[in-house]
């Protein structure tokens, strides 16, 4: 083939030069991407491959469902808390367990602290370097940075020229020491970097502030989740007791002093996202006002299950409403039912799995999901089974399955949630988006509408920042609700009535859904005779990184790269920028280094 029209409205042309970037990230299974560029270096075909087999589902079979959270917490170093939460929710759903109000609220606070921290870490540690040139920050006049800071965020007290000069000196010392470390891998001479020096210095300064603040926010998890860095979860509630008159001894129940400490940290987080993170994203975006690429599937189909209700068990109170938008029709939100076998299905036609004879084109609902690896390259693949030079996207080419909603590929993540919430008219989100766009348009001299600005790489990054701040806003509400509940005399944190497997039915099945930082996360469990019979995780990166399905529909990663012009195909800044905007996991290194720090990732142009 040369040119092909996909059923979901994209044009693919694989006739041009093929560029391979491997790995893009090494988490949740490594990610590799191959693109074809035309004679003007515009991306015309994109193929994303999950390059690592993750068979978590199969190793859970036969285990105690109450222990599943501890296993799934180890899938990946970044997503520990959301997998654990999805797991306990799935088991509670299967067994009909309702957790006490305090547990409901404590879990929400923990999930939002995690989301907030995850978003901040993602932006400053991983993604900012796709936009910001830290080396160029050495050229900045700290007075210009101070002026810029006061313009973009008047409420930020740390804005003096002296403050920025100190940071610049610290940075210079680090660079001059010859150990560039984390900054050693960038394509800093690439013309794709557009920030002036003063903006680069502002961003690098906040990168350091974000690092400083990390150690403060994790203390909330330590108080509520106990054992850090792997917080504790429990089927039926939370493993921490409340005793308002208790002392501060290690392992002691939550008391007023600890709760006050949590409140202080939540307030600090709120101030950081309001005064630093959100203004930074708007300011940086304004310098890239003409780089409105990367929207891909988000302009068509988005999905989330919905989460964070104010009333337990009542989805109509979800602060992130669930649903599906198809074909860019923001006027209609279709309801989603994760239990309906006709709605969510996973296909393996282009994935290295098999469902059995005659099932190659069948979609399976996660409750009936099969995880049976079948590694084989297509006839047009180049290289060998152990050293692939180019995959054959017409055959199987990824370890990621292809989940679909009623046959439709959907983008998931903060941008999907923000498009859903904005379309539904969630007042807080609407005000946030409109305000952010006003500020962006004012700085950039543009007049972009939400529908033009949101479905882009920049929009994806902005939505994540806004979501972080919305999480901070919500956690303070959750905190107040918890204090009111405790003061009303409810100290319960766990419902143990169905802890004993003897109380369980012979067979049960459930689903646990979480608005995870990277998008819609679902765990589906089947329990038989007190043991796990089947377990399937459909994670956000499965939705976004999915390969093609039997109809040839492409997923979010692939769609997002199409039409993007590259300054220099041998320095795939644009590819990394857009793929990183999905936050495809990060702790295990996204900026991959050789021992001398020399290599970002392998890029092959052929």
């Amino acid at each position: 083939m040369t040119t092909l029209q996909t059923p979901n409205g994209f044009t693919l042309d694989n006739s041009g030069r093929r560029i391979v970037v491997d790995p893009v990230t090494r988490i949740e299974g490594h990610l590799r991407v191959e693109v074809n560029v035309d004679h003007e270096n515009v991306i015309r075909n994109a193929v994303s491959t999950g390059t690592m087999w993750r068979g978590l589902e199969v190793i859970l079979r036969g285990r105690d469902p109450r222990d599943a959270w501890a296993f799934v917490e180890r899938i990946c170093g970044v997503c520990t808390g959301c997998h654990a939460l999805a797991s306990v929710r799935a088991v509670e759903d299967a067994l009909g367990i309702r957790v006490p109000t305090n547990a409901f609220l404590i879990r929400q606070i923990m999930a939002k602290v995690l989301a907030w921290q995850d978003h901040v870490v993602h932006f400053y540690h991983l993604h900012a370097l796709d936009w910001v040139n830290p080396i160029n920050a050495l050229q900045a006049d700290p007075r210009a940075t101070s002026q810029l800071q006061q313009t973009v965020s008047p409420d930020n007290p740390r804005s003096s020229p002296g403050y920025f000069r100190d940071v610049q000196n610290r940075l210079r010392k680090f660079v001059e020491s010859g150990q560039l470390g984390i900054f050693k891998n960038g394509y800093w001479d690439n013309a794709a970097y557009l920030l002036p020096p003063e903006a680069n210095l502002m961003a690098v300064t906040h990168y350091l502030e974000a690092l400083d603040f990390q150690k403060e926010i994790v203390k909330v998890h330590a108080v509520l989740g106990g054992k850090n860095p792997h917080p504790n979860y429990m089927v039926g509630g939370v493993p921490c007791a409340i005793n308002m008159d208790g002392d501060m001894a290690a392992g002691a129940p939550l008391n007023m002093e600890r709760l006050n400490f949590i409140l202080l940290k939540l307030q600090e987080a709120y101030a950081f996202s309001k005064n630093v993170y959100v203004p930074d994203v708007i300011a940086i975006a304004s310098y890239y006002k003409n780089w409105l690429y990367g929207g891909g599937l988000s302009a068509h189909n988005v999905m989330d299950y919905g989460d964070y209700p104010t009333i337990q068990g009542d989805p109509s109170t979800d602060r992130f409403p669930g649903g599906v938008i198809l074909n860019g029709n923001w006027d209609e939100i279709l309801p989603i039912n994760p239990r309906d076998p006709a709605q969510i299905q996973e296909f393996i036609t282009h994935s290295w799995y098999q469902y059995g004879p005659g099932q190659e084109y069948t979609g399976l609902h996660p409750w009936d999901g099969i995880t049976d690896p079948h590694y084989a390259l297509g006839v047009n693949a180049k290289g060998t089974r152990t050293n692939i030079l180019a995959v054959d996207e017409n055959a199987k080419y990824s370890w990621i399955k292809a989940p679909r909603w009623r046959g439709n590929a959907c983008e998931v993540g903060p941008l999907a949630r923000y498009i859903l919430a904005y379309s539904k008219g969630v007042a807080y989100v609407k005000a946030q988006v409109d305000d952010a766009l006003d500020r962006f348009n004012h700085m950039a001299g543009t007049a972009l509408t939400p529908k033009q600005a949101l479905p882009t790489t920049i929009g994806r990054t902005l939505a994540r920042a806004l979501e972080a701040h919305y999480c901070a806003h919500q956690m303070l509400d959750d905190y107040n609700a918890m204090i009111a509940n405790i003061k009303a005399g409810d100290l319960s944190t766990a419902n143990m009535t169905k802890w004993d497997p003897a109380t369980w039915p012979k067979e049960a099945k459930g689903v646990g859904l979480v608005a995870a930082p990277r998008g819609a996360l679902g765990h589906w469990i089947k329990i038989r005779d007190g043991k796990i019979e089947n377990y399937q995780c459909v994670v956000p990166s499965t939705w976004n990184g999915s390969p093609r399905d039997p109809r040839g529909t492409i997923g979010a990663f692939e769609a997002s790269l199409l039409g993007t012009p590259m300054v220099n195909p041998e320095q795939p800044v644009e590819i990394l920028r857009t793929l990183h905007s999905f936050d495809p996991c990060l702790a295990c290194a996204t900026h991959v280094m050789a021992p001398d720090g020399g290599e970002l990732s392998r890029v092959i142009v052929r």
Partner: protein
Amino acid sequence: MVVCGAEENKKPILVLGIGNILWADEGFGVRTVEYLAQHYDFPSHVGIMDGGTQGLYLMPYLEDLDTLIIVDAVDFGLPPATVHYVCGDEVPVAMGARKISLHQTGFQEVLSLLALRGCMPRSIHLVGVQPLTMEDYGGGLTAEVAAKIPVVTDKVLDLLKLECSVSVIPRQQGTETFGISAIARDVYEAGRPSEKEACRYGDERFLTLLER
């Protein structure tokens, strides 16, 4: 986790096991600190931590330590199950040398960020073991590598004694559990589903077929 305490005038020391327990010998570091915590009592300024694969998220625990002792499965290019020790500047180099594991490059970045922020530990040590296999998803440590837990434990105790003047006391076994009992080594390994239930092969670029 044993929380780093504030014993007077003593800067904290951390013994950090890293790795993924779900990937066979990749779990060596975590299993070794589990063993340490189960068998010895440590003074309050010595922390014993299961860091998993948390990379950047571990940074808050690593700031301004006096001494950091990392235990990990590292590809040094040595024969399987060989114990190898490096310290100082050699640590980040060793941890990034071969990108076979999911966490090593991430941890190298953590060390780099500590340097940038000027809060590197006064001294850093890495006690590693060369893994035999990490290609057995859902599996435990191989017998050869598991046999090195006491050896590496001795090395860690020597470092604490010689570098930090810390003496530890063997404790009565079984008096304290470390971490979540569902994924403690014995429970995790004994409860493994059969190979029929849980396949143990996959992508040949990463996974070679185990002896069947």
